[in-house]
């Protein structure tokens, strides 16, 4: 999966407008980064990357890049 594809998936998951997220974006600055976005991210990680994301993993995410790196 390309970085562009990863960002597009994350924008959709966080209900963010297209082109608003970059790898450097801090998650705390993203409006949609709430409890539902975290659950949506779990589903995304499972369906798109075949990975099981737990709450301790999510707590370590600071930027969009951290999530992209986890996506593999």
């Amino acid at each position, binding site marked *: 999966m390309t970085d562009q594809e990863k960002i597009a998936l994350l924008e959709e998951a966080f209900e963010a407008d297209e082109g608003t997220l970059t790898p450097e974006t801090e998650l705390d600055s993203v409006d949609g980064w709430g409890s539902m976005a975290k*659950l949506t991210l*779990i589903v995304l990680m499972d369906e798109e990357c075949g990975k099981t994301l*737990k709450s301790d993993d999510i707590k370590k995410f600071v930027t969009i890049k951290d999530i992209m790196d986890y996506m593999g």
Partner: protein
Amino acid sequence: MLSSKIKGVKIAGISSALPKNKVDNTEYASVFDEETVRKTIEQTGVKSTYHSVGNQTASDLAYIAAKNLLETKGIDPSEIGILIYICAHHDYIAPATAFVLQKELGIPENSMVFDINLGCSGFVYGLQVGASLLLHANTKKALILLGDSSSRVVSPKDTSRLLFGDSGAALLLEKTLDESDVLTFGLKSDGTRFNEIYVPAGGFRHMNRSHELRMEEDGRERSDYHSHMNGTNVFVFSVTDVPQLVREFMSENGTTLDDVDMLFMHQPNLFIIKNLLKKLKCPAEKAPMTIDKYGNTSAVSIPITMCDSYGERSEGKKKVMLLGFGIGLSWGVSLADVDTNDILPVVLTDYCFEDGLIND
């Protein structure tokens, strides 16, 4: 997976009861901000719940469900030899609430009466335990009662309050010794995750904690006497461990969802239900939902959804898959045949047992 196949016991009746006090979730706009309430309703799918008032407990609701079931089926309480009450919220620290229910229902002393402390998996576990015991005892009928008083253990300042409702249910099991009456089970438990959903104080380990609400790490205000849940990990459990159990169970029993008329599953919230159905590749029309009107009613969510589907309109015999999962962590699946004529409509009650023990 712990597997179990029980022949010669059938489901002979199911009934459910709710408190009369209906709470519309839009009413919470005065506690939380309007946008939070709107979003929570949209994401969880819960529009209303029913909450007990005064001293009414889950056992009062289970009692009314049981009384209704016995009266409708024309069964004398003396015919019941096994009474099991399944609830995570008992009436007293001791004794087991099942004894209070025995007294109220008038079940004689030649019986086996006890509680099981389980939540959302309770209906499947109760069916297995009740049916197993029935086969090896000199009685033909077992009454499995279920109750939940979640509204009492969720902090008033926790938005989870919008999700949970109080309820009671009764399941009547009958020994037929007919080999064609088969109940099949797949069960799992994981104590390493005991604190994914828990109420830390109020038992004997942490008896004297402060009742004052404090802001916790997850942004919810509560005390140690309130319910704590790691929502993220419980979600992961619901959409990974639970479908894995169903796949294992279906593979071991050589069955698929095509062989099942209906799937009655625990109703945690709409987001989990939708994702779980997707994982199971189960069409929504095969899995009735009641999360919108009753909320998450823990162990009662399976029977109350059955009562909601068939209480007012019978559709003859159905092969059903029952799927419960939650606190423990505990999860279980069962295949059973049920005559929908034996499923009663949901009743509302403000009944409350007056024990006379404490008078201020």
